[in-house]
């Protein structure tokens, strides 16, 4: 958000003790802190679910499986954050790139075409395919104004599943492609049931690598250009940033992450159908990014995890709970039905009340709380100023 936002957030005074040393350390050693942070969470989660009340919902295997799927959404949110959060471009068809990644692996490693390409290199190929489509879509449209991009991506997000659905001879239409190969390491093939750990650990690895790369991008010249474009495209262009190329790179890198997630999804589910990639996926991921705090890498990861847990655990448990206790009205309600209503309300409420998200990015917070910026904020955003 630009400095035009005047938010009455409390000024946080940073203590000079252990906390500040820790945060200094994590600023200087981003990659190590990401590795340690994600590793600690990834190690803690399977243990936490052994405790009540979580242990009562389902066994550890089911939980870890669920966390793996949550990881896919975290990857998607991290990728969309590059586009929406860092560069300020609204991509509403993000699921299309997810689909392209998934179908790339499905074509390459299933009996449908009789191919048996290995998983690991295909991760990169799927990501590259998604990036190519991202560039193909972005190159003509990123020259236009931002909100046109939103509608074009929305259209693209619809075209891709429609195309997959209707090109039955190449994609088996609504049935999707099944029997996709599981990943292998040497002679070890990832088990599909029983042992969820190989997929889980792979996912954790993917998240760590993506997060480190995205952090490095954020602090690079490119990342600063993205933020400059987000804040004021005209000023960024005037300062010598090639806005089209920079936006295109954001778009392509966002698509790459979605492609990666798609390949993993195909390998995890071992079947892909066009219905997995409908508009609701794009929308869910957008809600995750907005809730988590656009632009904040940790924030969107946590936001994605929370939203996924709400939709896959909390709402289901509410249904079960009220079914059991037999409260007349509440037990009739299917809480899962309200999922998108909740997202909609959350999006509107977040934008009106706390546009920086639940976990705002430090840079934006700083922007909002230095004195000059506060003064500048009084003057308002010159591009959108209206006399009222």
């Amino acid at each position, binding site marked *: 958000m630009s400095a035009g936002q005047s938010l009455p957030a409390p000024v946080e005074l940073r203590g000079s003790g252990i906390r500040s040393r820790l945060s200094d350390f994590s600023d200087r050693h981003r990659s190590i802190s990401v590795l340690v942070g994600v590793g600690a969470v990834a190690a803690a989660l399977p243990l936490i679910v052994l405790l009540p009340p979580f242990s009562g919902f389902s066994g550890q295997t089911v939980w870890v499986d669920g966390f793996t799927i949550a990881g896919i959404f975290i990857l998607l949110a991290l990728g969309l954050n590059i586009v929406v959060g860092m560069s300020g471009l609204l991509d509403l068809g993000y699921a299309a790139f997810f689909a392209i990644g998934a179908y790339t692996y499905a074509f390459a490693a299933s009996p449908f075409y009789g191919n048996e390409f290995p998983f690991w290199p295909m991760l990169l190929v799927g990501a590259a395919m998604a990036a190519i489509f991202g560039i193909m879509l972005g190159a003509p*449209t990123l020259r236009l104004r931002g909100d046109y991009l939103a509608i074009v991506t929305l259209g693209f997000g619809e075209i891709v599943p429609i195309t997959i659905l209707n090109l039955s001879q190449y994609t088996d239409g609504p049935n999707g492609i099944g029997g996709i190969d599981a990943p292998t390491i040497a002679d070890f093939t990832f088990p599909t049931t029983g042992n969820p750990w190989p997929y889980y650990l792979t996912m954790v690895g993917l998240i760590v690598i993506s997060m480190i790369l995205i952090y490095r991008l954020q602090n690079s010249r490119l990342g600063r250009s993205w933020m400059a474009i987000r804040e004021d495209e005209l000023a960024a262009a005037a300062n010598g940033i090639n806005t089209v190329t920079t936006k295109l790179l954001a778009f392509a890198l966002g698509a790459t992450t979605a492609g990666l997630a798609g390949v993993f999804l195909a390998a995890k589910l071992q079947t892909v159908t066009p219905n997995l990639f409908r508009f609701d996926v794009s929308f869910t991921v957008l809600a995750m990014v907005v809730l988590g705090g656009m632009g904040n890498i940790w924030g969107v990861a946590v936001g994605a995890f929370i939203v996924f847990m709400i939709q896959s655990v909390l709402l289901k448990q509410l249904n079960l709970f009220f079914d059991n206790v037999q409260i007349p009205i509440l037990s009739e309600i299917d809480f899962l039905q309200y999922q998108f209503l909740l997202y909609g309300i959350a999006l509107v409420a977040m*934008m009106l009340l706390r*546009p920086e998200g639940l976990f705002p990015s430090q840079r934006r917070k700083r922007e909002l709380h230095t004195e000059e910026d506060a003064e500048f904020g009084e003057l308002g955003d010159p591009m959108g*100023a209206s006399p009222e």
Partner: protein
Amino acid sequence: MASMAVGATARPNVLAALRHSGASPYLFIVALAVAMYFVLGPRQFVNALTIGAIYALVALGYTMVYGIIELINFAHGDVFMVGSFVSLFVLTNVLGQEGSASDLGGIVFELAITFALTMVIVGILGVLIERFAYRPLRNAPRLAPLITAIGISFILQNLVQIIYGPSPVNTPQVISPTARVDIAGVSIGWVNIFIIATAIVLMVGLQLFVSRTKMGRAMRSTASDREAAALMGVDINRTIALTFLIGSALAGAAGVVQGLYFGNIQFVIGFQSGLKAFTAAVLGGIGNLAGAAIGGFFIGFVEVTAANFGYFVWAQAAVFMILIVTLVFRPAGLFGQQLGERA
């Protein structure tokens, strides 16, 4: 972009004169319509015009709102969808209508009530959305109102889904679909005539309102320069609210027509028709009222033609391709812009 075309000097030949007068896109549309008539045959041609009228009415709301506050109102398609459900409510719960009305008096009475109530209710809904979701964010970065618009869109969809369920709901077709009339040897449904006529009346009315009345002038001045308009004494907030009122009321009318023509409605129609109507608005040059109307008819033709040749499943993809191609090669639309100079 538009200013470049205006600055070009007219060369003394017919083509250049045509281009200068701005009539060539309209000639193109007329030529296309004639061609379509022969390709589709009279019956499908009327069908395309009818569907196009619905898109055109929805497209007007997109184009008006974009023209005045430069916001793609993603919720507009869903406002249209809510309109169709409000009309269902009015017809069945208020008027107790089931199936088709039998006498002319009943038809006129019921349609008048349905249109009036639906347009008022949906218009107010539009104003409320503007007041609570968009106005607080008017000076915020562009991304913020776009995201609330999507949020509103999902709220509306899900509320309707919760109330009326996820499956298509039958609506009473007040004008019986079997009532037909022969015009020059071609059998045309009364309902088609009614819909096309209603749409044209509303569009002409809107055009007159915007170009002739004081409030219309306030809208145009707000669209071209909000600050200058405010300095001249235009109440910006009221003008924008009025734009939402009119745009949403037209979407409400389109909602009534949707139920009337197709006989069933579903909570997702807002999303699908909304995208198509938006394409129509872009095609006609966003901010351009006449352009949006013609764009709507054009989309209707594309869809019916695709369906006619057995490619219905591709119709939607084709519409999006048109959208992308238009944005890439002619971002100002076929007819350029009227309300303000944008894009």
